[in-house]
């Protein structure tokens, strides 16, 4: 029987948005693993970690609270799952903050009442990666591999918000191993001791402070190359975008010759599970993941 979850896709995975290809591959992956994602009806933006200028604490909490409340109403009893690090983090933080602070909880519900909603705050908020590790398990994930990703060396770039402050149970903040295990499970080779595994790509500041952020991104890519990587894989839409799209700019500025594809773990899994390039969201790559395309085309 399919495992069902209440799904919070988030703004960037909407059609035509920056990580729409992430959603495509997630859907293919879930299809194989018999995971059913029930989208929270009428979900809204979580404000990520950058809404704080205009949005005060309570309005920002209200955003995620609305999503949780909608989930409770429409997908009762189901764990809320997010694929985007920022979505997961903001929602989970909201849940915790409201759990700890009765005053804020009361005010939040007062605001939610304006939208005809009420928050109970009882469901678990989870990242897709948690679902894979905890509910599916590496063994099961491995069983579905049809086309092992032989001969590809991959740097598992975990980034910040999937990792901190909550992270994945049993993993360390400084050296989480799960992404490497994913890579291995799909038959590819992880880069050992990837130095920049949990370094920051600048996040939203890639827009506002491009030079400072690109300096960070440069180090992330460089370390991957140093480790002999053919590609980088990440669980986070912001990481994926920042690390992939600025390579030309960085090359121009630093004289580097970066041209390394950056995909999601779900892209790998979808390809390994035998889905085609489109189903795996490979056409969403700005820097083409040729090795994956070759396998997908086989």
């Amino acid at each position, binding site marked *: 029987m399919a495992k069902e979850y209440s799904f919070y896709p988030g703004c960037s995975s909407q059609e035509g948005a920056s990580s729409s290809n992430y959603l495509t591959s997630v859907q293919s992956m879930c299809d194989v693993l018999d995971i059913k994602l029930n989208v929270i009806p009428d979900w809204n933006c979580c404000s990520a970690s950058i809404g704080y200028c205009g949005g005060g604490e309570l309005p920002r909490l209200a955003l995620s609270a609305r999503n949780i409340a909608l989930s409770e109403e429409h997908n009762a009893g189901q764990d809320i799952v997010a694929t985007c690090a920022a979505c997961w983090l903001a929602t989970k933080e909201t849940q915790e903050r409201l759990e700890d602070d009765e005053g804020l909880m009361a005010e939040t519900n007062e605001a939610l009442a304006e939208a005809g909603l009420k928050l109970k705050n009882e469901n678990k908020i989870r990242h897709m990666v948690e679902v894979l590790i905890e509910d599916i398990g590496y063994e099961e994930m491995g069983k579905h591999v049809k086309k092992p990703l032989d001969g590809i060396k991959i740097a598992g770039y975990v980034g910040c918000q999937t990792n901190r402050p909550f992270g994945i149970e049993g993993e*360390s*903040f*400084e*050296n989480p191993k799960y992404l490497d295990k994913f890579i291995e499970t799909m038959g590819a080779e992880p880069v050992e*001791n990837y*130095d920049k595994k949990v370094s920051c790509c600048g996040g939203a500041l890639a827009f506002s402070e491009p030079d400072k952020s690109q300096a960070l991104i440069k180090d992330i890519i460089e370390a991957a190359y*140093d480790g002999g990587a053919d590609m980088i894989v990440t669980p986070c839409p912001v990481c994926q975008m920042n690390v992939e799209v600025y390579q030309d700019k960085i090359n121009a500025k630093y004289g580097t010759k970066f041209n390394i594809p950056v995909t999601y773990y779900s892209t790998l899994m979808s390809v390994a599970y035998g889905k085609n390039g489109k189903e795996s969201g490979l056409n969403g790559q700005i820097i083409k993941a040729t090795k994956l395309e070759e396998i997908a085309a086989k």
Partner: protein
Amino acid sequence: MSDIVATNQTILVVGGGISGMTAALEAAEVGKQVIVIEKTPSVGGRVTKLYKYFPKLCFPTCGQEINQRRMAANRNITVLTMAEVTELSGEAGNYSATVKISPRYVNDNCTACGACAEVVESEFDDEHNYNMSKRKGAYLPHNLAMPKRYVIDPALIGTDEATKAKEACPFNAIDLDMQEETIELKAGAVVWATGWRPFDANKIQPYGYDRFDNVITSVEFERMMDPFGPTGGKLVRPSDGKEAKNVAFIQCAGSRDRNYLRHCSRICCMASLKQSTYVTEKYGDEANVSIYYIDIRAIDRFEDFYQKVQDNENVTFIKSKVANIVENHENNNPVLKGVNTEGYHRYENEHDLVVLAVGMEPSVAKDEFPIELKLNDEGFIENDEANGGVFAAGCSADALDVNRAVQSATASALRAIQVVNRVAQAEG
């Protein structure tokens, strides 16, 4: 072992480190019957693994020699090694303890002549050196081990080597059929002196103890100074055996931190100050020591020692909790990143070797005590009436230096004596 006489006037001392030994000696020397239960094959505990004590820079084995002589001469003390208290019940004046004794495979006949070790080749991690070196499968735990009796590693049992060892012994001291034994002991009072263990440095992920060869712990560094230690007394770094002259000490590694141990472990500042002298003594002007700290906690006369170290030009103090360590792949040097908060100076400092001044946590975890005791949040035993006739000594009571641990143990001996004297009075 069935010949051990224990009554409700007996004092049971759990733990044979310096605190347990002190409590046992004080009580036994005023005529009390004492049974010491020690988990490892020899008494002495953590201090046997220390090279020097601060602030005198004298040698722990020196006091151990005296204490061991006192113990050997005192017939009121029975020591059970490789023994653990698995159950404890009762109340002040009337306890019964279940003690599990693991087989040593060597009996009292052993003269420590070493004939068994000569024929055994297999080697195992040497606990005495925090597994930084190997010892044989038939071994004396260390030079000053008491009891001075060899131990056969359980992994040897059933192998040809075990038989060879047995055959090599001229005194019939090796008994390969020895079995785990469980005995029941009565006691009037219990001194709990199970001490501490170094905080698991693997958990301090930003410092990469698990990832970088040249990041070690203070207890490991201490073993390096011992001429009979893992490096033969050389201060060298693990990755390439190069002399470690540029050494960083990171304070509060695992202490004063809600991620690890919330308490201050008290000893680590002084331990690093002491260890800084190891480096400056070995390498003189070539030594370059950096101590990264939050607060240097050198109270009372320890302050004098701090001043002395501060006066050394080759030792630098940086008020900073190091943010993280990365490794320079070219030379395996650890690179420390952080901010000196005195005036905000950012640094990226490369060192030959990094020593984590790891904190002290109680050896027995909160939920592992065989009897319910009043503990504080940090897991140390409180001095509380609710604990009846069980009294904490040394680092079971708080994070203490050796001097204070001995003080604490001396006090706990009196508390135990008070109980058994009451029993004696009641029984006439």
